[in-house]
């Protein structure tokens, strides 16, 4: 019996949740920083370049062999980047709509982080009641879609607030793109929940532990979800809202310093949360085929979290890799793909799943 057990259950819950939120937020921020580094490094390698390899804080001089190696890999680059963003001049152009201009970066970054609340990133840690999910919602996936669709407001608002043509065009493109792909994304997931019979993401993981990964049951749903996720997170080949070559920088053209960094953070956090969703929905979450029981000891609990993170990293690499595989889509092609192919495909998938569930394997 320790001091903690004397507290009321509600207080215990609040403390546990606060700790979990802090840790998840910290880990996610670190992941965002290093996702940027991974992006730069992998991009560099694919383009036959070296990538960031110079940033060396003075301490590296005292680490004999490992120090120069870490510098070469650019491990310290995210710190320098962060520091740079903090110290840069925060410039507000005279012609912007000030309130929205200040509001937009916040609105862009918050939904991306809120999504992590419902994702089960591990089984249990310590005692069996201590579930490794911040909010074990029964309607987890509805919450996710609700929050993710808020993300577009930040971008649209940024485009509107900047009060100049390129950001405005970027904002418009982004809203059209995100709205059309959200439908396909939502529909692809419906089939998954028809199979599972529960909207709780923890239940989805449990189902996959018993019956095998969902990507094997619903490959079409996974393909649609993956591509829609690319469009939702504004990643190439669907980065029309940004499209450096034609829109200068899209919605964040007028932003500088920390406000720009927030858009950047939001983009990568959205990428990570989309990957986390995919891991949970299609790749068995924290389970492996032989490690699917909820953890009985602390070590196994940590192992489950590590498994989840490993799967996440693989998907992130896919995200980064695809960036260099395909050129950017033309706008009408993007709309065509979303409305005329994915939505019918997703609907057909729902229908087929329903028929199979009703007549073949109830």
């Amino acid at each position, binding site marked *: 019996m320790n001091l903690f057990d004397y507290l009321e259950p509600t207080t215990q819950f609040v403390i546990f949740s606060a700790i979990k939120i802090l840790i998840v937020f910290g880990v996610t921020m670190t992941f965002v920083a290093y996702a940027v580094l991974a992006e730069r490094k992998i991009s*560099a*390698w694919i383009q*036959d370049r070296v990538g960031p*390899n110079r940033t060396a804080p003075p301490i590296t001089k005292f680490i004999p062999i490992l120090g120069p190696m870490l510098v070469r890999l650019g491990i310290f680059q995210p710190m320098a980047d962060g520091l740079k963003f903090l110290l840069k001049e925060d410039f507000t152009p005279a012609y912007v709509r000030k309130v929205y201009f200040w509001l937009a970066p916040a609105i862009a970054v918050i939904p991306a982080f809120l999504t992590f609340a419902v994702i089960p990133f591990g089984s249990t840690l310590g005692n069996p009641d201590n579930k490794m999910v911040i909010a074990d919602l029964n309607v987890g996936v509805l919450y996710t879609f609700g929050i993710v669709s808020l993300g577009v407001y930040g971008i649209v608002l940024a485009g509107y607030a900047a009060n100049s043509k390129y950001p405005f065009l970027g904002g418009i493109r982004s809203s059209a793109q995100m709205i059309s792909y959200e439908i396909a994304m939502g529909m692809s997931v419906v089939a998954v929940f028809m199979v599972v019979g529960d909207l709780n993401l923890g239940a989805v993981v449990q189902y996959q532990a018993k019956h095998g990964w969902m990507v094997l049951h619903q490959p079409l749903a996974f393909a649609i979800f993956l591509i829609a996720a690319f469009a939702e997170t504004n990643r190439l080949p669907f980065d029309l809202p940004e499209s450096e070559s034609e829109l200068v920088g899209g919605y964040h053209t007028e932003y500088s310093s920390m406000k720009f960094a927030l858009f950047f953070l939001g983009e990568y956090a959205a990428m990570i949360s989309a990957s986390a969703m995919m891991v949970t929905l299609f790749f068995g979450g924290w389970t492996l085929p032989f490690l699917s029981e909820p953890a009985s000891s602390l070590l196994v609990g940590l192992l489950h979290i590590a498994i989840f993170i490993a799967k996440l990293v693989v998907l992130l690499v896919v995200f980064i890799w695809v960036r260099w*595989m395909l050129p950017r889509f033309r706008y009408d092609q993007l709309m065509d793909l979303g409305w005329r192919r994915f939505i019918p495909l997703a609907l057909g998938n729902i229908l087929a799943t329903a028929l199979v569930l009703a007549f073949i394997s109830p």
Partner: protein
Amino acid sequence: MSTKIVDRKPLSFFENSYLPTLMSGLKVTWKHFKKSALQGRPLTMEYPEQKWVVPQGYRGAPYLVKDQEGSTKCVSCQLCEFVCPPKAIRITPPGPNGAPADRRNAEKAPAEFEINMLRCIFCGLCQEVCPEEAIFLQKDYSLTGESREEMVYGKAKLLQMGGTHGGIQKWKHKLEEAEAQEVFPVRTN
């Protein structure tokens, strides 16, 4: 007419599925990733550590040269100063009572010879115009300094950077000829 209309074949169902493009994209990116990340052969030349080989005939910074006996070749004729398009060269002649040249029989040597490397356009006219083969565009292409004054290279620095450039040693030859005139009979060889 000369206009040639290229007919585009409609894409097949397979091509329309974006899968072939995806596969070829995967192949190309993997090839480059393998080369630069796994085999460690990126195309980047990491500049300050690795430097490219400066080709023969490269026009870098102009420096003064010495002859094979270590004396200044420049005779302070000021042709390069006159021809220099950006007026980067400035020569101070020794004057009537100045120090003599540091080799026998040469009339003069410059008291001071300055090239402003911030003005110099590396055109090579000074090298072309020099009757003494005393100034050459060499292989330095990256000159740096912390002030404008530092970038004005004086005679000592130019000579030190320029090194030695052997040649016919016109003045020494003339001196030998003159000395031979003193001896009788005239040397024939």
